[in-house]
């Protein structure tokens, strides 16, 4: 199932997240991930929703139909800066620990917690980068994993223009 990346600017009011998730459930749209947080304007929040589905027209229209929704943008692949954060705890016997940390460093992962037999890494990056790191860590044995869900921001319009003309 193709994935689509949508940014939704909403009024920063209680219950807006519930409205959005209720609408997704009611309309049988599938959320892959959803993040929400404040923006530069304290009266607005921004949601980044990754949606599974073939066509986004109805998703976008139904989002707009919510009274508290101000702006909806669907980002074409590569059009937005996308970031995700992952915390991943892997088995790390003292004998293999340096090997694991070395591999992680190549990915820009940072060790944020060390236990007697595990190391926990933090990785920030594009979803694909996280997926690759996840794959690599599987060989050592993953104890626990958590992801933030994706956040995204459209690239600066001027920047995009320059990139296109280049």
């Amino acid at each position, binding site marked *: 199932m193709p994935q689509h990346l949508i940014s939704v600017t*909403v*009024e920063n009011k*209680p*219950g807006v997240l*519930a*409205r959005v998730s*209720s*609408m997704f459930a*009611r309309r049988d749209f599938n959320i892959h991930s959803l993040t929400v947080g404040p923006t530069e304007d304290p009266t607005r929040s921004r949601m980044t929703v990754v949606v599974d589905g073939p066509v986004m*027209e*109805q998703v976008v*229209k*139904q989002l*707009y*139909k*919510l*009274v*508290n*929704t*101000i702006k909806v943008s669907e980002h074409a692949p590569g059009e937005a800066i996308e970031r995700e954060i992952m915390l991943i705890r892997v088995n790390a016997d003292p004998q293999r620990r340096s090997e694991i940390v070395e591999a992680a460093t190549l990915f820009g992962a940072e060790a944020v917690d060390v236990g007697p037999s595990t190391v926990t890494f933090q990785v920030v990056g594009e979803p694909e980068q996280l997926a690759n790191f996840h794959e690599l860590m599987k060989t050592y044995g993953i104890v626990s994993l958590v992801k933030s869900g994706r956040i995204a921001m459209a690239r600066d319009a001027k920047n995009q223009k320059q990139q296109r003309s280049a």
Partner: protein
Amino acid sequence: MTTITGAEILMRSLELEGVDVVFGLPGGAILKAYDSLYDSSIRHVLVRHEQGGGHMASGYAHATGRVGVTFATSGPGATNLVTPLADAYMDSIPVVAITAQVASTSIGLDAFQEAHTWGISMPCTKHNYLVTEPDEIAAAVHEAFHLASTGRPGPVLVDITKDALTGTAAFGGRKIIDLPGYKPSVKGHPKQVKAAVDLILESSRPVLYAGGGTIRAGASEELVKFAERLNLPVVTTLMARGTIPDSHPNTLGMPGMHGVYTASTAMQKSDLLINIGARFDDRVTGDPDFFAPDAAVIHVDVDPAEIGKIREAQVPIVGDAKVVLGQLLTQVNKRLGDQPAPEWTEWWSTLRGWQEAHPLGYVQDPDGPIQQQHVISELHRLTSGDAIVVAGVGQHQMWASQFWGFERPNTWINSGGLGTMGYAVPAAIGAQAGCPDDTVIAIDGDGCFQMTFQELITAALEGIPVKVVVMNNANLGMVRQWQRLFYSERYSASELSFTNPDIVMLAEAMGCVGLRADHPDDVTATLEKGLAVEDRPVVMEFRCDPDAMVFPMIPAGGSNDNIVLGPEDL
């Protein structure tokens, strides 16, 4: 500035919105609001069940075009509103529900009569509010009325905590509306309007597919002018009956599952559907994959999400039906100038041929049993069709839509989208409260009647003289029809009783006049007697044929190419 209680702010806000009547039932959490209502000029109709209050508000809104208002207390009072809210949401009826909530300090603690009304009502309202401070009431009420009545109309719920009602705040009148994300389009895009007219003039088998949106937008006059200027055949959906007079030569009637053969077939064979305020409902389209295969689509809707939801539109136009029809007409006149309307000669001759070959009809055996169509036709004759007709859901509803000739908008009130049995009696009471000078007739089935008849006590005590025709076939008739056609005549749990309850005695017990006919010879006299009652509600029971079936019929999920005209086609 002097301060007043939240309850007083609520009443003053409602008065400022022009509310003249509220349908509701008090309880613990909403007592303070009822205490303020005691001093208000707003009329209160005390219902017997909150569902009745919700449907009354809907009937009122249908008949008057104004926002209907209902009150309910917290917990069960509010949950009893779920059905009328869902009903009004499906049919885009402007209703504002004011519910009370337990004190803000008790929310989440499973307090007595606490329910999560805001969450429960979210998927069945256009928008809703939870108000916990007295100084937020005025803005919420004003926004609620604005949202309910503009754009695509719909129900809005305002849930107000008990402490917000008892607390005090300054009241400065209506607040400015602050809805940065709510800007419904009114005017259609001129380029699209032009493209639509071009497409119409190039078409050879156009059909104007008028939906409930034309009635909600008050667009009937524009619709008729547009249809006449282009000599277009018009089909009117269940929600649009009366938007163009049934006596108009361009009207083909209702399309769909129990629609007129010509209306359904015209859509099916059309090369251009001009959809104004309809939504390609499954009761119209049958299986959408086989629906109107050769037709291009112009779709005018105030709600962008309706466009492309079921059927792709070649020319989408977002806007208010009345405004866009005005734009379309202007564009047509610009294109045609002094030229007469296109004749569509071949198309009209085909349509007239179908009308002649497949008219609606029924046979009333003079020895009985009574056929419901006969009762409806007689009722229409005796009233000259000058009445507001309200229906429940089922066979009687379909026959009422088929056999009542509607001549003006807002005279047909029914539960179209949700199909809410029990809608007729309370909705008729609401319509009568809003239109005291009109004759309001509920055409109901015995199954529907037994869901909400207790509101006739409300009507009798409140002096709301509705007329209720109960088509008693001692069955859940439409269920029986489906069981007969699709479930090998296994009549599982669809049989009611002719004699229990005794509907005449029941009517009398509720302070209404009760009348009965069980032979065709008595139909006219019974109707005459019932129509003459003006000081009380009247219930006219007709014991009808339990085996009668509604035709034409397109079995659910079937193709509109296969219309079943009668039992012989099965």
